[in-house]
Structure formats: structure tokens, C-alpha cells
């Protein structure tokens, strides 16, 4: 029992008294039933960073393929990554790099759906994103949402239904006051005032008195109204989102960029008991979709990513949470081996890479490989489905779990993928 997930439950029993003993034992039983259940963070590198300029460099390829960046030696012998990821280079034991991931959807919208769900987009079914699956499997036991998406979610809960939508948190900016839509009490609204409003509501909401259990909808409105009030008025939830409680030095460690601040917020939420956080890294000015000026853009984008992710790994490890938090970072596809006339790289789905850490990931290794120009997997390669299956396995959810879609159709969580061998 070295996991914080369980430790949190213990704290609840000990300090909040939120659970009865039998409930606590029930949770224990749940947690020890088969795979270990973990929290998770998906760092979505939106726009699709070029694999050959980040974690899959080809220094021996022709210049129009290898580009401007040089490899740098990591702390793992024989493992090299991009020179603009120096902080991650010194932490290579903490994560595994998966190379040679391959698919054939080179369109942003459809590929994002693919990478965010582990299933190829379809016209007839809308698949749920990872976090919605986790909130379905691990319901929130605290005054906190189970799933938070930093920046509006792209796919949503799909066939699981809107109950499993994430709570959306906007991207925090370094040094700026932070608020969460719907959670933060704004414009001087105090908890006391809010409490009196809620009291008024409870006094006036009497049309269905005596019929509170009549239908699902009546019952549901009451339940969620109370839950919303508890969450918004709870000091715990508000504290989890309150980045101003961080020491400036800690805030600086994550970097003065929205990347780092978003990852800092993700860490705080996991520490508070949120089960899943999706962080969409897509700055307003330009994202990883580098059709032009690939190298100058990456010189701007990679350092804050490097710093933020390194700080996230460090912090979770310092707090003993790395082993109980599954982390994945990936974009939606890779980029063309050949540099185009505008100094950019275009969409390329036949090869991409991803990074996994935390939980039972065996760090300090590379799994899979691409060919000499990073154009194809060197051998069979992995699919986004495999990536999703591995991530779910690390979270403690069997990728072959069967769900009922909202029209009663049986759905296998990740139909076509299998956990990548040697990763966990």
C-alpha cells in the first residue's frame, strides 16, 4: 500500500470522517481487486510536435531530414533526446519513451479524437476520452470532481453520457489571479452569502415536496444541486484550484509559462484527490502544428514544456505520488521526415512518439524504433490503440472492459489495442 490513492482514503477516514468504516473497507476491497487503481494525467501536446525533433532524433539522416537540432545524452546510457529538452534529459530514469507509434489519420480533428480516446473516430459512435472513462470507473468520493480538463475538453464523455464530462478549468497564467469557471466565487460573493442563497433556494424549492423520489430527473436535480453547493463552498475544492497558495519558488520551478502553470495546477488537483486531469498544451500564439518555421517555434515551445514536465515529475516524486499517478504525454501524430520549403514539417501519421511515466512504468528505456529517416516504424510499430491500452492498464482499468453505450450496444473500451510489452 504505497500509493497515495489509498493514502488519501485513509486520510479521509482519519481526519474528515467522511466515510464509515465499512465504506472504507469497501473502498479497500475495490482497490485491491485486481489491478491497482491510480490517478492519471494526460499531457496532450496539441498540434502534433515533430517526433524527430523531440524524442526520436536522427542525427545521421540527411540534413533536410535531421533538421537543426542536435541530440543530447540523457542519464540513461545510449539514450539521446533533443538538446532543447535538457531537464528531461537528466530525468530519463523516470519515464519511458515509446517510438514507432503509427496510424493513418493525418487530420487534426480526427486524429485528436483518436489519441484522446484510443479508438478511431466513427460516424456512428462517439467514444469517451480517457478522463471520462476514469470518472466512470472511479467516482469522486470527495467534494471534488473526479475529472478536470485544463482547457475545454475536445471530445467529451461520448457514449458514457454527459454525467462523465470533465469540469473545465481555464489555463492558468503565471502571476495572474486564477479562477475556475463555476467553482470560484467571483465579484465579491462570499461563502456566507452563497450559503444564504442556497438556504433560500431550499426553502422555495417545494413544488415537488413529498415527491423527491418520483422520477430520476427530480431525484437527480436534488442530488446534483447539493453536490454542486458542497463543491463550490468547500474550502478543500477551492484550495485545490488556488494556485496562489504555492510558494513563488515552487511556481517558478514549473516555469513562468502557461505550460508549467497548467502542469502545476494538474499536480495540485491530483494531490487534492482528483482522479484524472487532461492538460491541453496549446498556447494561443502558436502550437506544435509547425508547418512553418518548425525550428524557431520549437525553440520557443520546447523549453517551457521541458521545464514544466520535469517539475511535474519531480514534485510528484517528492510527494510520493509518482508511483500512484500514471502520466502520458503525446500529440496526435508526428511530422514529415522532410523539411518543407517554409522550414516547417507537415502532418505525418505513419510515425510519432509518446512518453509515459508514473505508476508501474519502467522508466529509463526506449520501446520501439523508427527507420533511418523516422518515417516508419522499424518493425511492426504500435498503434494509438496500444498506447491507450497501456495507459489504461497503468491507471488500473482493463482496456478490455466492456461498457454499455447509451443505446445499449456493448462497447469494448479499447477494441483493437494491447498494452505494450515491457512498458509496465
Amino acid at each position, binding site marked *: 500500500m504505497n500509493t497515495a490513492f489509498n493514502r488519501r482514503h485513509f486520510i479521509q477516514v482519519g481526519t474528515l470522517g467522511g466515510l464509515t468504516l465499512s465504506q472504507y473497507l469497501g473502498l479497500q476491497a475495490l482497490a485491491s481487486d485486481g489491478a491497482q487503481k491510480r490517478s492519471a494525467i494526460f499531457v496532450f501536446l496539441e498540434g502534433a510536435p515533430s517526433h524527430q525533433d523531440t524524442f526520436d532524433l536522427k542525427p545521421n539522416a540527411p540534413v533536410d531530414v535531421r533538421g537543426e537540432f542536435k541530440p543530447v545524452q540523457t542519464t540513461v546510457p545510449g539514450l539521446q533526446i533533443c538538446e532543447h529538452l535538457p531537464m528531461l534529459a537528466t530525468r530519463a530514469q523516470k519515464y519511458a519513451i515509446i517510438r514507432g507509434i*503509427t*496510424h*493513418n489519420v493525418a487530420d*487534426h*480533428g*480526427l486524429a485528436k479524437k483518436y489519441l484522446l480516446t484510443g479508438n478511431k473516430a*466513427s*460516424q*456512428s*459512435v*462517439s467514444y469517451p476520452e480517457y478522463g471520462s472513462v476514469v470518472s466512470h470507473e472511479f467516482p469522486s468520493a470527495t467534494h471534488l*470532481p473526479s475529472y478536470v480538463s485544463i482547457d*475545454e475538453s475536445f471530445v467529451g464523455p461520448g457514449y458514457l*453520457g*454527459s*454525467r462523465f*464530462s470533465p469540469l*473545465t478549468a481555464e489555463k492558468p497564467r503565471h502571476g495572474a489571479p486564477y479562477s475556475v*469557471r*463555476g*467553482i470560484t466565487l*467571483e*465579484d465579491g460573493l462570499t461563502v456566507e452569502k*452563497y450559503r*444564504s*442563497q*442556497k438556504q*433560500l*433556494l431550499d*426553502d*422555495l*424549492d417545494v*413544488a*415537488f415536496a413529498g*415527491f423527491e423520489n*418520483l*422520477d*430520476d*430527473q*427530480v431525484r*437527480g*436535480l*436534488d442530488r*446534483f*444541486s447539493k*453536490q*454542486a*453547493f458542497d463543491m*463550490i463552498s468547500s474550502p478543500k475544492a477551492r484550495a485545490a484550484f488556488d494556485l496562489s497558495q504555492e510558494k513563488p519558488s515552487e511556481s517558478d520551478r514549473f516555469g513562468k509559462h502557461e505550460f508549467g502553470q497548467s502542469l502545476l495546477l494538474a499536480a495540485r488537483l491530483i494531490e487534492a484527490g482528483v482522479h484524472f486531469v487532461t492538460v491541453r498544451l496549446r498556447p494561443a500564439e502558436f502550437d506544435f502544428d509547425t508547418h512553418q518555421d518548425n525550428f524557431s517555434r520549437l525553440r520557443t515551445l520546447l523549453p517551457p514544456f521541458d521545464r514544466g514536465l520535469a517539475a511535474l515529475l519531480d514534485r510528484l516524486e517528492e510527494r510520493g505520488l509518482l508511483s500512484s499517478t500514471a502520466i502520458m504525454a503525446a500529440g496526435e501524430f508526428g511530422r514529415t521526415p522532410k523539411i518543407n520549403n517554409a522550414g516547417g514539417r507537415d502532418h505525418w501519421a*505513419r510515425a510519432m512518439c509518446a512518453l509515459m511515466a508514473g505508476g508501474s512504468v519502467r522508466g529509463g528505456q526506449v520501446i520501439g524504433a523508427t527507420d533511418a529517416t523516422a518515417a*516508419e*516504424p522499424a*518493425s*511492426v*510499430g504500435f*498503434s494509438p490503440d496500444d498506447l491507450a491500452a497501456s495507459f489504461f492498464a497503468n491507471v488500473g482499468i482493463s482496456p478490455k472492459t466492456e461498457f454499455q453505450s*447509451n*443505446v445499449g450496444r*456493448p462497447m469494448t473500451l479499447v*477494441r483493437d489495442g494491447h498494452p505494450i510489452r515491457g512498458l509496465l
Partner: protein
Amino acid sequence: MKRLFILFVLLGSPLGAEEAEVTKALRPASQRFAERDTRAVPDFQRHVVPLLGRLGCNSAKCHGSFQGQGNLRLSLFGFDFQSDHRALRADSHSGSGPRLRTGDPEDSLIVMKATEQTDHEGGQRFATGTWEHHLLLRWIESGATGPVLKGAHKEASAVAGNPPARESEQSADALFRERIQPIFEDHCYECHGFRSSKGNFSLSNREALLAGGDTGPAVVPGNANASLLMKAIEFRDDGLQMPPSGKLPSESIAVLKQWIDSGASWPDAVDSSPQATNQELVALHCQPSEILFREAGQEVQLKIIAEWKDGTREDVTCLCRFQTNEGEIVRVGSNGLATSTGEGDTHVIALYDNGVAAIPVLRPLAPMAQPNHQAAEGPRANGVHPIDGFVNAKLGKLGLVASEPCTDAEFLRRVSIDLTGTLPAPDEVLQFLNDQSKDKRLLKIEELLERPSYAAWCTNKLCDFTGCHPKSISSLLEVAREDGYVKASQWYEWIYQRVQQNQPYDQVVAGLMLADLSGRSGSMPSFWTRQSLEEPKDTAMSVAHAFLGIQLQCAECHKHPFDQWTQADFNDFSRFFDSVTRTKTRSVTEEVMTLGLLRSGQVKLAVGDDPRKPIMDWMQDPDNPWFARAFVNRVWAGYFHRGIVEPPDQFTPANPPSHPQLLDWLSREFVNNGYDMKWLHRQIASSQTYQRSWRPTESNRNDHRNFSRAIPRRIPAEVVYDGVKQVTAAPEDQGEVRANLRRRASGHLSMRMAGTHAMKVFGKPDRSIVCDCERVNQPTLLQAIFTQNDPLMRMRLADSGWLIEIEDAEEAEERLDTGLLIQQVWLRTVGRMPSQADRARAKKHLSESPTIAEGMADLLWAMMNSKEFLLNH
């Protein structure tokens, strides 16, 4: 003497005996195969595959999964007879010996596995010595004959009885089956199988392979180097590299080369598209045809008779799969024994071959309640509204007592939301409550039907059904999104114009269906030109869903589990949309084709015909089984939060209507009244059934299916958004806020708002998948967070024109009548007068508030968070 002899032969021969049975029905397989020494011979389609289905072998969890299980893959729910037969006949790769041993049936792997005489992950499916065991043994020892394809001679397909092929042929066949076909399956069929033929290239049979696609013939038999296929898989050409997901392993490339060089032999029987067999099921008959239970635990044994096109009938009860739609009312065993578990009504479903039988099950409330309506009377008796006639008749049967009529205030709010997507205005409520005329409800319905907001709300729903979605119209590129909005708005406007003129429904649909794809002469082509319709099958699914209430997608990959649709039906229907989907500029038949219209007719298309035309003609035929019903049912569902067929887009035999005669009547009269949508709304809204209170009687608390009371349901996303604006608007802006459709979520803003935070939270559909389930009306935590504390809600209150007026009046020290203000809060939010208790609590709050304006803001906040506001009741 001769005559006598013939008679003797007829009596004596087993054939004669069988024929004599025909009129009755063949005895069930469980009897005919009860003994091991039976001489009966099972048929692959009629007995073997249904048995495998009943045993669960071809389910998605076992061998029906797309990867198969333990090397054996069967078609899901079993309707691809050739491939199932092929799979059973092929040797297993596990080294456990052949699946079928005709000489030694007991040692066949499938028998050893199913009886768990050898290790089987699926466990024991049946014991040795049972009829199931005997049936399989008899099938194997009698030659393990496969299906007979339509038009083929029986001998040709009796594979196991084939004369031994010459050795070279045999090895070429083996090469194909063991090495080549698996490569195609794993790497090519997703894009070039029978379901999909990217670049017009399909690998479904040898003919298609040789013909090639857009880039020319794919294979030159005997010359791999000259074959385009090799060029593509060896990545010799930058422009054509297959498969796109990555180069094949070199062994695979080598074996494909070897295969082509040796002539690209392809066994005739191997065709990846399922073909029709020569046996066609005509009907499943059920005895009894309905079940009326009286008490818990009561049992009824069902008997299912299959009737085949050749006239044979057989008791197939033991080969059916049984299930129930409502386990709380009836349970059914795998042998067809139905047991009553609770009161109410539902169906037991029996499935066999591609037939589905739905057997109604009903158990009245015990003790029988005293119905408060004339149950036995049919429609139109004693001036009873026809809808009430049908609904009450069933309530009488069930012993359910309907709820009282709702109050005037409830009626006005309910009908305003359902008909116009709009909350009633405060003055309107007062006027209506004070109106003493007896027919004021009918007059109100007429008045609402004439409002622009009626046309807007109706249009919004038609946009839901037809899939008007900015992102699916434009390409997925971000830059094209604006174009998507423009086209989606044109789509909305096009429908709105027609609804506003009350154009008949079938003509509105005909306008969409037969749209001139150039967009000239006021046509609306966007339904067809949507980028999201990539393949003809996408278009077929979209048409079937939008206008027929049918979900075809299951049949895209396998037989529909609860419907008669097979892949062949789906493929046929898709081919109508070949031209329009591929070109997006024209819909013209290029070769003479005869296509099936979802098993309700055949159409011959000549070159140059618009293939959409016969579909529209068929839909407009008054006898069309779905067109009018699907629409009528969807409109009904809008009023009752539940269709007569529920879900409304699942018109399948396994999902029968709760009130079949009502649905028949409503759709027939809708057609007889010229598809007049206003007629339909008027009929439903004016019925007692619609105007019932949500307050339950002693007996109907748990009734969600028989319309004995109103079911409170959350107001739709658009109504929440518009409603909050109305509630907070200044008195003089009330009219504008309600009438200006350009600024309403149910009006033109509908397109812009799709996908925004508020609409997502309240479940407005994206209209990007073909399913009515996309609109979600369930309450969620995020909705409660939204109405309690979202900046948008707080902003509406802070910027409220009404509250600002109150604030100004307070500052100017004008005298404010708090009683009237409080009354306004209730009229605006919940459309009724406040009760004494409401007034007292509100007064108390105002007196404790620093200012009246602030206290009023709290009151509005509280009432907008009340269930009474958030529910349509």
C-alpha cells in the same frame, strides 16, 4: 394396382413422412436429435449456426469478436454462412488437430472444445449425450455440408463432399487461405474490403483484384514485378504506398510476390462479401401470440415456429435466443419459458436466423384498480379524443388509474415550452389564468402554432434529426469553419421558411432529398455535401436515421443483433448513394442496377436516373413502413419525453411500440391530413393524455411507459439559455427577447451556439453522429454548477435590465410594491402565482436584504435553481 403401389411408397418412405409433417411443422431439433442413432441430418443455416448462436459461440465476447478467439473467428451473431463454414472447416493452427473429422466426429476439435473434453476457455457449452452434441456429430459425420448459395447447385458447395482436388490446385488454395488471405484481412480489408473500397479498389474477390481501382489493374497474374500491387506494397512509388499505416513485414511482401508470380490463384468460394443463401426465412410464428399474466411466478412456455420460403415449417424453440426488454416484468429462460416477475407490460423477444418475434407480455396491477375512464371504448366514442381512446384502453387493461388534468398554469408553461421552446410571458400567464372560456386551452394551442417561435423550435428539431452541424458541413480544417456556419445557417433558414408556411412534412423532406446539388434555384444541398459523409454507407446511415428512424450501423460490420438487417441489405441500400457521396456534385446512376429498398421493394435503375428519386417515391408511399411513423413518433417523444417507439430512432422488430394501434392511427391520419405538421401538434397537445398532471395516483407512480401521467423532464439546453435571458430582461424588453429569433438559442443562434460551454453542459447535440441519443436531457453535476455559479448566470443577474430598473427606482426613492415584484418573480420563472408560503418567505428575504434589488437578485437566482424552473412538468 399401380396406384396402390404409389400410395404404398408414399406412406412408407421417410420423405413422405417428412412431407406430411410439413403442414404441421417439423419436430424440434431437441427431439429429433435426442438419440445418437438418429438418421436426421441437420442443416448448416437452419440448425448449426442458430445452435452456435444460442450457445453463445458467435457472441462478441467469444468467437464473434473481430479478432476471433483461440484462432477461430465466426461472424458476429452468425449471418455470414460461407465464412463461418470456412472457419469451421479450416484446420486450427494450435496443433490440436482438425476442427471437423467427418470420419471420426467425436474427435472433431469443435466437439471436444464445446463439451470441454479438451481445454476450452469458454468452458463447457453442453454435455456429451445431449441433443446439441448429437446435432453437431450428425452434421459432421454427414459431411459437414455448408450453406447453399443463391443460384448455386447444391453439390458445388457441399465442400466436404468435393472430389479431391489435384495436388497443385490444393496447394495454391492452401497458399491463398493460409498466407494471403490473412494479410489482406489484417492490412487491407479495412479500406478495400467489401464494406469499403477506397480509390474504387476492392479486394473482395479475384475479379475485383484484377480489375483494380482508380490507378488501374492491381495485379498481372504471373508477373509480380509488373503488378501495381507490388509497387505499392514495396513502397517503390512515393505517390502510392500501401498500407498507409506502414510497410508490411518483408516475409509478407515475399509471399505476396510468390503468390502473384505463381498466377494469383484465388479459390472460387472465397469471396469476402457475404452472399445470400438459397434459404429464406419468411416468418417466425409464436404460440401464444401474447401473454397475459395474473400473478408473480406464473409461467408460460413459448413455442416458436419458423416458416421458410420453400413452405417448410419447423419448431425452432430450442434453437432460438430469448431475451426480455424489461426484467422487472418478465424473465425468460433460454428454453423459452417465460416467468412473471412484476406488474406492467413489455415484450419477450425471440431471435432465430434473421427473424425476430416480439411477444407482448402484460400483467395488470394487483389488486385490479378501478379505472376512472371508459377503458373498453375505442377511439372517437362519446367524443373521446382518439389519442385518449387508445391510451386509456391500455390503461384499463393494465389497471392503471391516470392522473388528474394539470392546472392551467402547468398547461400553459408546458405547452409553451413543448410547442415554441419559450417560457410564457408574465402577462400571458395572468391573462390565461383569468380567462374563463372553456376552450381556452385549444385556443392557446392555435395561437402558439401561429407564432414564429413555433417554426423556430420545430426547425431546430428538424435540424437535429437531419444532422445540420457546421463542423460536419465544412471540412475539418479550422479555416473552413466559418463556411460551415454560413451553410448551417442557410440550412436552418431553408427549413424555417418552409415550416413557417406549414409546408407538408413530406415536401420539406423531398426538398432536401432531391436537392439540386449545385445549390441553384433555392435548393438546399448541404445534407448531401457534408464532408462527414465520406462513404456511401455514411450517407445511407444518415438517410435511414433522419427519415426512417432506423439505425443501420450495426449491419455495417455484422448482422444486426436485433433486427432483420444483414450486411447485404445495408450494402444494397448504400449503393443508391454512390454517386452523390463520391462526387458531391451529382446523383446519377452510371450502370443499370436493381437494388433492394430495405426489404420492402426492388428498384431498377437505368443509366442517368437520379437514384434518390425512387427512395423519395418509396418514402412518400402511404404504405411506407417507417417514413411517417418515424416522424410522428419523434414529435410524440418531444411531448412525452418518450416515444411510442423508444428510443425513437430504433424502429426494430425487437423494440416494438408500446401502443401499436395509436402509432398506426397517428401516422395514418398524419398522411391522410397531407403530412400537416400543425395538425399533428394540435392532435397531441389537445389530448387529455398530454394535459395530465405529473402528480401520481396511487397506481401510476412507476408508470413511465403508458402515458398515465406527465413525466417531469429537464428543459432543453436552448430553453435554459433563452429562459434565463427572459427571466432577467427588463419589462419593456420582454417582447423583443422572446420574439427576436436571431438572438435566440432555439433560433438562428442555434448553429453558433453548438459546441459552446453552456450548450455542451446542457446536452445540446453536436449533430455529428447519427443517433437521437446525442441530445441529453439528464441532469448532471456540471449543470448544477452552471446554474448556481457560472459567470454567465451571475452576469445575467448582474446585468438584468429588470433588476437595474429596480435599483434605479430604489436610488430615486420611488415606492416599490414588493408584493407585485415577488409575484413577477414567480410568473417569470415558473409561470404561476406565488403561494402564501412563497410570498411570506420571499418577503422575509427582501426585508433582510440590504437593498430590494439585491434581495430580488437572490430570489431570481433561487427560483432559477429550483426544480420547478429546471423541469418541464
